[in-house]
């Protein structure tokens, strides 16, 4: 497993999540949504596996719905 991707229901949630992660010093980057995980044409967030727990906690706490994809 070497990639961790967060996908969201809509773009607003991507922005909210990215701003929350940046505010808490969690490294992440915005990337186009890979076709094999979704047919979206927008953006998602890539981070590293060690951040997964912190991100889950932070986004859930702030009511930002998301899905984590790892492979």
């Amino acid at each position, binding site marked *: 497993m070497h990639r961790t991707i967060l996908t969201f*229901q*809509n*773009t607003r949630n991507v922005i909210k999540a990215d701003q929350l992660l940046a505010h808490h010093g969690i490294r992440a980057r915005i990337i186009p949504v890979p076709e094999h995980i*979704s*047919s*979206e*044409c927008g*953006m998602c967030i890539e981070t590293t596996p060690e951040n997964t727990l912190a991100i889950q906690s932070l986004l859930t706490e702030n009511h930002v719905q998301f899905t984590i994809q790892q492979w």
Partner: protein
Amino acid sequence: MNRYFDNGSTSFPKPSQVADAIHHYLTHMGGTYGRSAYQRVYEATAMVETCRDALAHRMGTARAENIAFCSNATMAINTVIKGLPLTGKRVWVSPLEHNAVMRPLWELAKHGIINIHTLPAWPDGTININALSNIDLSNTGLIVVNHQSNVNGIIQPVETIAQWAGKVPLLVDGSQSVGHLPIHLDQWGIDYFAFTGHKGLLGPSGTGGFFAKHPETLVPLIHGGTGSRSDSYDMPLDVPDRFQAGTPNITGICGLLAALQHFPQPRHTHADLLHLMNAIAQLPGYKVWGANNPIEQGALFSITHHRMTPSDMADKLYRHFGIEVRQGLHCAPAAHRHLGSFPNGTLRIAPSPYHTSDDLEFLLKSLTELSSIQ
């Protein structure tokens, strides 16, 4: 001297930062909303969401995602009216509704889809709260109330009306109130609230939208691409995407955000406005159309003259004093019928925060001299 008194139609001037922000977007920033992932798109998308957050703060709701952008309040109102299951239902309206409400309702009524009823009101159009308890709300699909009249500026007690409405959906048309009055959507329990960006908020035209407390109750008016759930022909269920098909007016929203962030300190007080209204009412031949109770008076009002028609007055004010105002029915024939100013309508005085008390005095002096001009 600021001689533009047509801010009920559209505001002018805007904060200088509005044009700066639009220029910056068009010349340097660029980028669409949420359709790719490079920095330019991210910044444009984040800007749109910052504007949505700023609007939510301004309108007193913690649910920014429940605010959808539209091209104007008319489209927002159409989205709500045509998105609700109103077939066979009654719709109650205030007597001061704008055609942005009355025309979509009439379109449904003339095809036998709904029945329109008018809420009981006082002569100035303020809803008679005491009489509401006599109304049978059974089989009612919607109640619509213009928060601040675009004709006489009266402010409706929407919080009290929302309490009375209970579970019956309430749509508040905030076209004239937002930017001028404090708005507390969550506290007041408003179901749907339509707003525009180019009047009281001092943003550019082509911006506006609506708040929906329960967006799942509305069928989208416009269908199309959202950059999300693109594998499906169905519109997404989640907000704001559900109501935002197509590329939004990013340029306009950029300007609207700048307006929200740089809103000017008002240069005249509400007392100055009331003083102007009282002074005009004292002038021979003039009648002022406003709220009976000064507490319920919003940021605009109308006048008529016993000899000059509204169009005569508007023409003379412009030619002799350079004063710009709107005359006629203001797209609100229902309001004029209720007030008794139909069919000629009125001349509307709609100041902005940029008017000083000296500007208001100039208007008063011009109206004083106007009646002696042949």
